[in-house]
């Protein structure tokens, strides 16, 4: 089986400018066969391989997978070409392959033929679609929903997809914020008393923290008010919104102690009910 008459002139013309993109290796190969007016039954491996490789450089791959598909085809073509370069029988005419190579070429030709059909059908469908796109009909009925919905066009697959979408959505959500244990007014009271043991004056801001975290400030204020009520601390504020100065209360002579049991019971609840005491 000899290759069809592809004159050297045709081969040397080389560069083909193409604006359309190729959707796959078969698409590219088919394009080459068409532009060379090649009979698919007698695929000229040498020419096609060279042109295919030349085109490959200009193909823009959509993704790695499609790039791989193009490369597999390139490898097949190069393999076939290598067989031609090393003829088993030196007297054999050019473009003759051994049995395996011939099978491979035949398979390639079959696939190309098949793809040519599909491509033509795709074009036909595209034209139909364009025609139909000009016809407007109702797509959503105003009719009330039927009592039993026919499930003809549904499948388990849709359920699976819905589930996957849900999982994906969950994955995309930011990690959940874990709240630290709420500050306890009682603990803060203990801290203030502890501090007042070593110094006789404190600034509110130094206890509550300079970061001005709202909960810190609220809890500290409540703790302070509680201490004042119990007579364990005195506070004074020089000006509006000024820093509050905390001093040991009148009762600091007696050993400072943690608040009595009834307070403990009430203060175990976080800040919510505390203002009632203050």
């Amino acid at each position, binding site marked *: 089986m000899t290759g069809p008459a592809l004159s050297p002139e045709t081969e040397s013309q080389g560069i083909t400018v193409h604006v359309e993109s190729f959707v*796959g290796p078969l698409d590219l190969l088919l394009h080459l*066969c068409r532009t060379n007016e090649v009979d698919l039954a007698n695929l000229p491996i040498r020419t096609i391989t060279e042109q295919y490789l030349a085109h490959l450089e200009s193909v823009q791959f959509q993704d790695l997978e499609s790039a791989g598909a193009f490369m597999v085809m390139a490898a097949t073509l190069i393999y076939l070409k290598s067989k031609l370069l090393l003829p088993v029988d030196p007297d054999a005419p050019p473009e003759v392959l051994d049995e395996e190579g011939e099978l491979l070429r035949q398979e390639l030709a079959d*696939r190309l033929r098949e793809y040519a059909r599909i491509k033509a*059908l795709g074009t036909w469908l595209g034209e*139909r679609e364009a025609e139909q796109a000009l016809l407007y009909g109702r797509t959503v009925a105003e*009719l009330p929903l039927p009592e039993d919905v026919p499930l003809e066009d549904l499948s388990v697959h849709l359920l699976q997809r819905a589930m996957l979408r849900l999982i994906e959505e969950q994955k995309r959500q930011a990690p959940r914020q874990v709240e630290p244990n709420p500050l306890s007014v009682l603990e803060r009271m203990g801290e203030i008393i502890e501090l007042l043991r070593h110094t006789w004056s404190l600034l509110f801001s130094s206890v509550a923290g300079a970061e001005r975290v709202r909960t810190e400030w609220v809890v500290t204020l409540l703790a302070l008010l509680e201490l004042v009520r119990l007579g364990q601390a005195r506070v004074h504020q020089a000006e509006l919104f000024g820093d509050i100065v905390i001093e040991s209360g009148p009762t600091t002579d007696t050993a400072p102690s943690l608040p009595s049991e009834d307070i403990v019971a009430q203060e175990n609840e976080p800040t919510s009910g505390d203002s009632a005491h203050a």
Partner: protein
Amino acid sequence: MPEPIDVVEALLFASETPVEADRIQEVLDLGSAGEARELVRVLSGRLDGQGRALQIIEVGGGYRLVTRPEVAPWLVKLARSRTRSRLSRSSLETLAIVAYRQPVSRPDIDAVRGVNSEAVLDNLLDRRMIRIAGRKDSPGRPFLYETTRDFLVAFGLRDLTDLPKVEGELVIPETPADATSSDAPADTTESTPATDPHQQDPGAGGPELAPRG
């Protein structure tokens, strides 16, 4: 009291899916589906004769009332939008494979296209052009795909036999060849001589289509 033909018009106007002759017969309490078809035929003739903006087309096994293509430009203007989003070439080719080979699995589709079709199939599933028909009894038990009624409607096909007939493997399964009405596109035949007897295997996934290792 409205005439039956007016009721048919109302049915077609109000329905979102093609209305089958059987359904018209059922709703109107007609003697036969043939009567329903006759009513549609008369109504269709009336719409055509009066030069109305609406027409009746037969798609997906039923009838639809749609606008004529001539008025499309004004509808596009009304919608303040470009024409509808169309399927890509990859999608159309994949759809063609599914239409002719159904039910067909992804490995078989990939083999014909020479590239991975997963994303394309997902898109077609989302657009309800295809659906899962089951699983194939082959390694990995891949899904089998088939076209839907929405596919027929989108492409203005009465049924699958409206697809052009092609030589070779791409024969429609279990469909008499003489039922096809359209001619194959010229493209399909030019490079494929019809004298290839070994091409007549209509199998859903012939061994010659096995993906290359």
